[in-house]
């Protein structure tokens, strides 16, 4: 059910039709914060919107499923609720708020409502900053940031990739997965194996 249908149903249950300016306002709101693909148990609706948008920027749908289709935002909501300690929960909530605040001050919109190219620009900025900090490119940046608090972008990427590649679409359609591969073959041409093993 999308938001328009939901609103229309609610309206019918209440016994009158929502029309005119009121309806326009609600539907504009709909555009600003699209329907969530899940019912968050820990995240607020705004936080969840951010997580949905960021998940799709990091791991988008292409000719194979992306993070949102694979249920990653719901996975993240559950991880924070069930596995994170209170201190970690507080820290992550702070990180989400700061990231969204940055989006608003830079692009005038929450991250979820920002244009795709602005979303990508902000995620890139966070990557560049981390690389700069370590004075290194590519793989060095995360390790170099070790010791202190895990940077927000690293933590989110970790959650998104974990959720995605342990999901059925991520493991079986993007990568490949075989629960019972049979006797181990130690040295096989990659061309014969194909893609990365999910596990």
């Amino acid at each position, binding site marked *: 059910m999308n938001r328009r249908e939901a609103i229309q149903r609610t309206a019918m249950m209440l016994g009158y039709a929502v029309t005119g300016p009121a309806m326009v306002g609600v539907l504009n709101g709909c555009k600003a914060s699209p329907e969530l693909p899940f019912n968050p148990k820990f995240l607020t609706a705004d936080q969840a919107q951010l997580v949905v948008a960021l998940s799709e920027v990091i791991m*988008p749908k292409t000719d194979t499923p992306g993070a949102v289709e694979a249920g990653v935002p719901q996975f993240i909501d559950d991880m924070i609720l069930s596995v994170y300690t209170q201190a970690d929960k507080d820290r992550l909530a702070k990180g989400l708020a700061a990231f969204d605040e940055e989006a608003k001050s830079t692009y005038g919109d929450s991250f979820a409502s920002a244009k795709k190219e602005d979303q990508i620009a902000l995620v890139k900025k966070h*990557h560049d900053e981390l690389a700069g900090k370590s004075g290194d490119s590519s*793989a060095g940046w995360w390790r170099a940031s070790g010791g202190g608090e895990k940077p927000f972008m690293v933590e989110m990427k970790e959650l998104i990739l974990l959720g995605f590649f342990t999901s*059925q679409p991520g493991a079986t359609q993007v*990568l490949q997965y075989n629960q019972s591969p049979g006797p*181990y073959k130690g040295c096989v041409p990659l061309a014969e*194996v194909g893609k990365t093993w999910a596990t």
Partner: protein
Amino acid sequence: MNLNIDAVKENTFDAIVVGSGISGGWAAKELTEKGLKTLVLERGREVEHLRDYPTMMKNPWELPHGGRVPPEELKFYPVQSRTNWINQGNKHWWVNDVDNPYTEVKPFDWIRGYHTGGRSLMWGKQTYRLSDLDFEANKKDGVGVDWPIRYADLAPWYDYVETFIGVSGRAEGLAHLPDGKFLPPMDLNCVEEVLRDRLAEKFGRKLTIGRVAHLTAPLPHDPGRGVCQSRNLCDRGCPYGAYFSSNASTLPWAKKTGNMTMKSNAIVHSVLYDEAKRKAVGVKVIDAETKQETDYFAKIVFLNASSLGSTFILLNSTSSRFPNGMGNGSDQLGRNLMDHQYRTGAEAEVEGFEDKYYVGRRPNGIYIPRFRNIGNDKRTDFIRGFGYQGSASRESWSRGVAEMSFGEELKKELMEPGPWRIGLTGFGECLPYSDNRVTLNKDKTDKYGLPTLSIDAEWKANEKAMRVDMRESAAEMLEGAGFKNVRTYDAPDNIGLGIHEMGTARMGRDPKTSVLNKWNQLHEVSNVFVTDGAAMTSSACQNPSLTYMAMTARAVDYAVREHKKGNV
């Protein structure tokens, strides 16, 4: 009165085995196959092969929280968590630390599994023989006491046990790491083959595929067990019974003799001693659920409750003859606690081989047998030595966290396997020290009112000096093999974390300085045998479980022969 006599009769067996893990399962199988009515007592819950492996067929997306265990569950496992190995697939195998307390005078990680099969469900399956290099070491070095046995005493029993459980490996002809009865070896991968060849060329050292208790071919005598499918989900229980566990192997064989009575939730309080007969007559058991005490009787008692478990039972078995614990006239009971040190070594990046990959998740790795203090190799800073375990593999999707890319580009990159990496971890011998010991703590009792153990043990100078070499030699070999960005590592490694605790009721020739004789029999009580890790006189550096199994089969053979002659 009749009732009482009937009760005694009902609780009387030919033999009692305490513990159902790696060695207890073997004692049960051997005793029952020799026709003895045998009671097997397991302090934990019942775990039936296949039926009680709830996660064995779960895919990654079927485990909650990506496999992570929430803190409100982990809080019952403060010690077990130190392994960093508790996950949704195996969480039901770990002992509840809150219910099973002990005292760490110095940090000691006591990692346990209380259920049918014990730690045989979750062991590493690495399976190596000891040799005379090990059995003669204490005597040559003047350390501890001399082993009362030599390789020749155990060799036929290694043969016997390996043939039954199925051990995959490659014969290498090394005197100090004797070959066994091997099923076909698992493959090395392309990069591991390179390391093998370069170690041979540049260092004259061997590298072989790990010798493991996984079936790489069917066992004709045991068609109930199948061949390894490279799932590498062993710690959940194997649907094929492809790795050796008591549950998949020895216990079903004991059961089918019709001679085994198995009791779960049966915590052994002590071994009962008859002063007049000067023998053990049975054991006192506390029911873990009702806390009711029951005595069981038998002519032979095998303690296989794990090193510290069996030691606890003996320490708690006091009488006027044995005020300090049964068989403890030497005051060695609880002393000489050993383990293997590890979690140090090196890793490296490997260039090339981008067009090569592998199929399957091999539940095994490489093994570099000990080369230190052998032949012309002589260190002045430590005695004994270490072996290495490790593996090479290609990086997987998790490398993406640290990549600069994201979005479509990252997705595409991760569909290709990443660069090869290789790592080596040393497994080092620990010497027996009389002040590395466990004692009974009567001030701290558990929920059954039993005293608890105090553990006071640490790595000492020899281990610390060896550890430096374990790290540096790993780096030297990886560099010598031409690998790039070699990085050493040295992770915190409390004694105990090797999960090879041993030595607290050592074998020896002299009752004044040892607890067990060459048949794993208490010097002072002829019908009590200890054939788990407690019996070890030195630790060697090899993974020890195979030796416990071989000692057990040998001791049962002796016990039953002597029993028939009326000597036990």
